[in-house]
């Protein structure tokens, strides 16, 4: 080892130490939130126990920092994972893959590849013009927004890991089948013809940067700043409304119209969910409070999937490259998948 490496090594050791300290502090705060929210509500604010207001306040003081802390940690981790998966690399993996296997791979890669609906169009063109089958492209395009880190964190934080896993699992299944069905239907004629005539440089000169771990950490921090910075007002607003419902709406109030016995609640949830977009972060806490008051889990899952997976703005963006019948098929197939999931969970659970 060279003597000149010492300052660099010391800096590295210091960074690792600081990262551990930050992790430890995170853990200690996270573990004590429940206790802290009770102490603040009842001892510091001096609120009466079992009142509507105090239970709403306690709920908010506990859930808001909990969800924001989880969000920060997970988004950071996801950012690091995503630094390994560029759209170019994903495209290379998916090119020429056949249906079934390609659909499965497309759905899975949709989860880990960085995606934003504003680049849905260039991504779509890049994929279909370089040998990724249409159905496989759709599996990717369905999974990418639906199974996103913000939704998963909120589901995990507010409902527990089982619901989060159910959501991710069923989301993958829907992306797989919907993409497979679109591939089987041979709908290439409903892609705008100019798409296939676009001469792209995809696969020839795309940036293939070599990232160091310091770069990946920076990428993770950037992702946190970007995503948490964007969604935190929605999260807080959603939790505030959820806290209100938690404190004030009577138990089982919703069972009559969002419960299992109301068959129409699942389609109604899907229809309501489609126009809502990007404020999924704000909707999930509200939905959690609804569930507590007697709504059925299948209905709730269907609602969230419709909000996140079927968004009107994204369809409008995709109109640039897809003709209306294909967009309708895409929306229809995904909606059917969501309905099945909704009914299935209402029956099973």
């Amino acid at each position, binding site marked *: 080892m060279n003597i000149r490496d010492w300052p660099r090594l010391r800096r590295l050791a210091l960074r690792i130490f600081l990262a551990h300290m930050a992790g430890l502090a995170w853990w200690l705060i996270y573990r004590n939130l429940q206790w802290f929210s009770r102490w603040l509500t009842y001892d510091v604010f001096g609120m009466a126990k079992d009142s509507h207001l105090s239970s709403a306040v306690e709920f908010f003081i506990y859930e808001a920092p909990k969800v924001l802390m989880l969000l920060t940690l997970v988004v950071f981790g996801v950012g690091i994972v995503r630094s390994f998966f560029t759209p170019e690399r994903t495209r290379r993996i998916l090119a020429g893959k056949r249906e079934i296997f390609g659909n499965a791979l497309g759905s899975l890669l949709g989860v880990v590849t960085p995606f934003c609906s504003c*680049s849905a169009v*260039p991504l779509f063109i*890049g994929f279909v013009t370089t040998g990724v089958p249409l159905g496989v492209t759709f599996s990717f395009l369905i999974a990418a927004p639906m199974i996103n880190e913000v939704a998963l964190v909120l589901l995990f934080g507010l409902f527990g890991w089982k619901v989060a896993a159910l959501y991710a699992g069923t989301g993958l299944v829907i992306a797989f089948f919907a993409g497979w069905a679109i591939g089987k239907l041979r709908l290439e004629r409903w892609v705008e013809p100019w798409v296939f005539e*676009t001469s792209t*440089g995809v696969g020839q000169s*795309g940036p293939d940067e070599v990232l160091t771990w310091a770069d990946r950490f920076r990428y993770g921090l950037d992702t946190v700043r970007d995503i948490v910075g964007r969604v935190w007002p929605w999260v807080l607003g959603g939790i505030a409304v959820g806290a209100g419902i938690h404190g004030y709406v009577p138990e089982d109030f919703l069972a009559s119209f969002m419960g299992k016995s109301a068959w129409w609640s699942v389609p109604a949830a899907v229809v309501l969910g489609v126009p809502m977009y990007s404020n999924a972060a704000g909707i999930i806490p509200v939905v959690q409070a609804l569930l507590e008051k007697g709504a059925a889990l299948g209905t709730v899952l269907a609602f969230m999937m419709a909000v996140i997976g079927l968004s009107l703005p994204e369809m409008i963006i995709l109109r*640039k490259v897809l003709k209306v019948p294909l967009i309708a098929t895409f929306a229809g197939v995904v909606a059917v998948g969501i309905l099945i999931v909704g009914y299935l969970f209402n029956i099973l659970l």
Partner: protein
Amino acid sequence: MKVKILGTGCPKCKKLFAEAEAALAASGVQAELVKIEKLNEIMGYGVMMTPALVVDEQVKVAGRIPSKEDMVKWFVEAASQNA
């Protein structure tokens, strides 16, 4: 020297344009900074995720906003190659 910002007008694309402008000023390099918003042209560079930064026809980064230091480094490098 020519610096191009590829993007279809998303918020991040505007941010990258502003930051590239600042980095260019900081680097002291003379260059023409242009926005490329046409999809065909963007695809021509093989970019699937916007925004992207192109320095002298070479894609430096796509899908994220690079640090100011990185941008300054690229600008200075490209300028010295041109000289």
